[in-house]
């Protein structure tokens, strides 16, 4: 997918339709593949649930010690935050820079470049398809967490609607950020250290570690300038927080903005990166 030739509107519609067709098929295939290895996937999810449970226990303990609330959040609100967190985290599983590293280092990319579609389409569609089984797996986990931690939920229909859109926005933002990072491997062959730095920033400034209101003021300000908050804090707050309709819509607009920024950076880096690609064999 280097240069898009001039096409008539009619041919463009045809192109879009075949792309949609591709997405449906790729998603379905991945969905079936994910259903196949249920036990393994479930174990992976259980390992992932440990993270929010730890945060939840720590902050609930502190809330209880300081008379019921920390930073304006009660134990029940923390519970709601981290239970929804788990769902958002599941949605936020994307093709990692490590995947790009392997793909480039091992020369797997060669075969993928020969296909008529840009490799990123396979990643976006594949991981999106995997979400459906993963969401089903999430239900029992959420049920157990709800029973154990007794969350306070107060949800409006609008919030549910915005949340449903926002988790896909988060998915796309994170996909393009991490893919752009993965492209660095074209120059460095290894991306581990850079990716660790990315994860630290995300952990602190996205609401992944704690609800952002717990962070010091300056960190909250910093979070406004970066894409991370739109991948965790915003979707979660959309559902469990008290955002007005206006704030909800503004949030979705910001997500859209960061998706375009992500696609822009990815495309730009890709253009230079792909020239550096060499593979022996295959």
């Amino acid at each position, binding site marked *: 997918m280097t240069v898009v030739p001039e096409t008539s509107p009619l041919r463009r519609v045809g192109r879009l339709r075949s792309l949609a067709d591709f997405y449906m098929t790729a998603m379905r295939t991945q969905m079936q593949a994910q259903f196949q290895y249920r*036990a*393994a996937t479930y*174990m992976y999810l259980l*390992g*992932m649930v*440990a993270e929010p449970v730890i945060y939840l*226990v*720590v902050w609930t303990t502190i809330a209880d010690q300081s008379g019921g609330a920390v930073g304006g959040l009660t134990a029940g609100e923390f519970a709601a935050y981290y239970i929804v967190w788990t769902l958002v985290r599941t949605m936020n599983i994307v093709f990692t820079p490590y995947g790009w590293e392997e793909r480039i280092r091992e020369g797997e990319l060669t075969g993928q470049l020969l296909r008529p579609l840009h490799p990123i389409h396979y990643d976006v569609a594949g991981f999106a398809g995997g979400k459906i089984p993963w969401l089903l797996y999430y239900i029992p986990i959420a049920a157990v967490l709800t029973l154990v931690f007794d969350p306070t939920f107060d949800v409006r229909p609008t919030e549910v609607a915005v949340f449903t859109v926002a988790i896909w926005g988060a998915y796309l933002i994170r996909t393009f950020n991490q893919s752009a990072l993965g492209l660095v491997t074209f120059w460095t062959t290894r991306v581990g*250290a850079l990716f660790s*730095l990315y994860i630290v920033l995300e952990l602190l400034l996205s609401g992944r570690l704690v609800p952002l209101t717990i962070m010091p003021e300056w960190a909250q300000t910093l979070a406004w300038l970066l894409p991370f908050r739109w991948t965790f804090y915003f979707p979660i707050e959309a559902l469990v927080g008290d955002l007005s309709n206006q704030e909800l819509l503004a949030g979705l607009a910001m997500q859209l903005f960061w998706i375009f920024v992500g696609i822009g950076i990815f495309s730009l880096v890709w253009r230079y990166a792909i020239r550096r690609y060499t593979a022996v064999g295959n």
Partner: protein
Amino acid sequence: MTTLRVALLHLRIGVMNDLQYRVNFALQILQSMLALATGLVVFGLVYSHTTELNGWTQSELLAVLGVQIVMAGVIHAVIQPNMMRLTQDVQDGKLDHALTKPVDAQMLVSVREVQLWQAIDIVTGAAVIGVAFVRLGGDFGLFDTLAFAVALVLGAVLLYCFWLVLATGSFWVVQMWFLPELFEGIFQTGRWPVGIYPDWLRFGITFLVPIAFAITVPAEAVTSRLEWQTLAFAALFTVVAFVFSRWFWRFGLRRYSGASA
């Protein structure tokens, strides 16, 4: 004696192999520092909202963090690489190569891989424990030092036994790629003293996954909370776990049918 010599030889080859890749050393230091910084920021956040967490002050909790980092270093340097190679060998039918050698197979599958640079975390963790120790006033008798050393060794052995049981599972379940993620997730519970967790979880990370013994008990030694009964119980538990894991490994081995050779 031969067994021990063979084990040491394998470990030496592994170390020499990793020494070739020096850039990885620098990168690993960077990652180790990043992980430590994150841990400290979390502590900073927690203690900006409270002065003690379930009876543990910041300095005491620093000792817990240090022990957790040390143990993570041990796991990532020797335990996990070997155990993951074991599951891979079972899946590929290559375990014959280890089984046909005239030494104890359990020993052999436990020493074939070393990721030397991961051991940087052992140094990082030790430094954190040192800082915690100084901040706590550094009142440390001979018994405490001895107890701490013993508790650390017991903890490492326990974690090894646990990983061996998990990896032995590959004789029944072929797909084991999730093990590192599953373990890593549960292992993170060790950053905090087990006392803060609800009963069911505390039971789980004490007896099912030996995190309480591996991390909280050594940390209790540093913070002078350790009673000798706890240490004795940990020793007993380690012996039981070792015997069980060895039995389980042999039990699983009977199911192995090689595909190579």
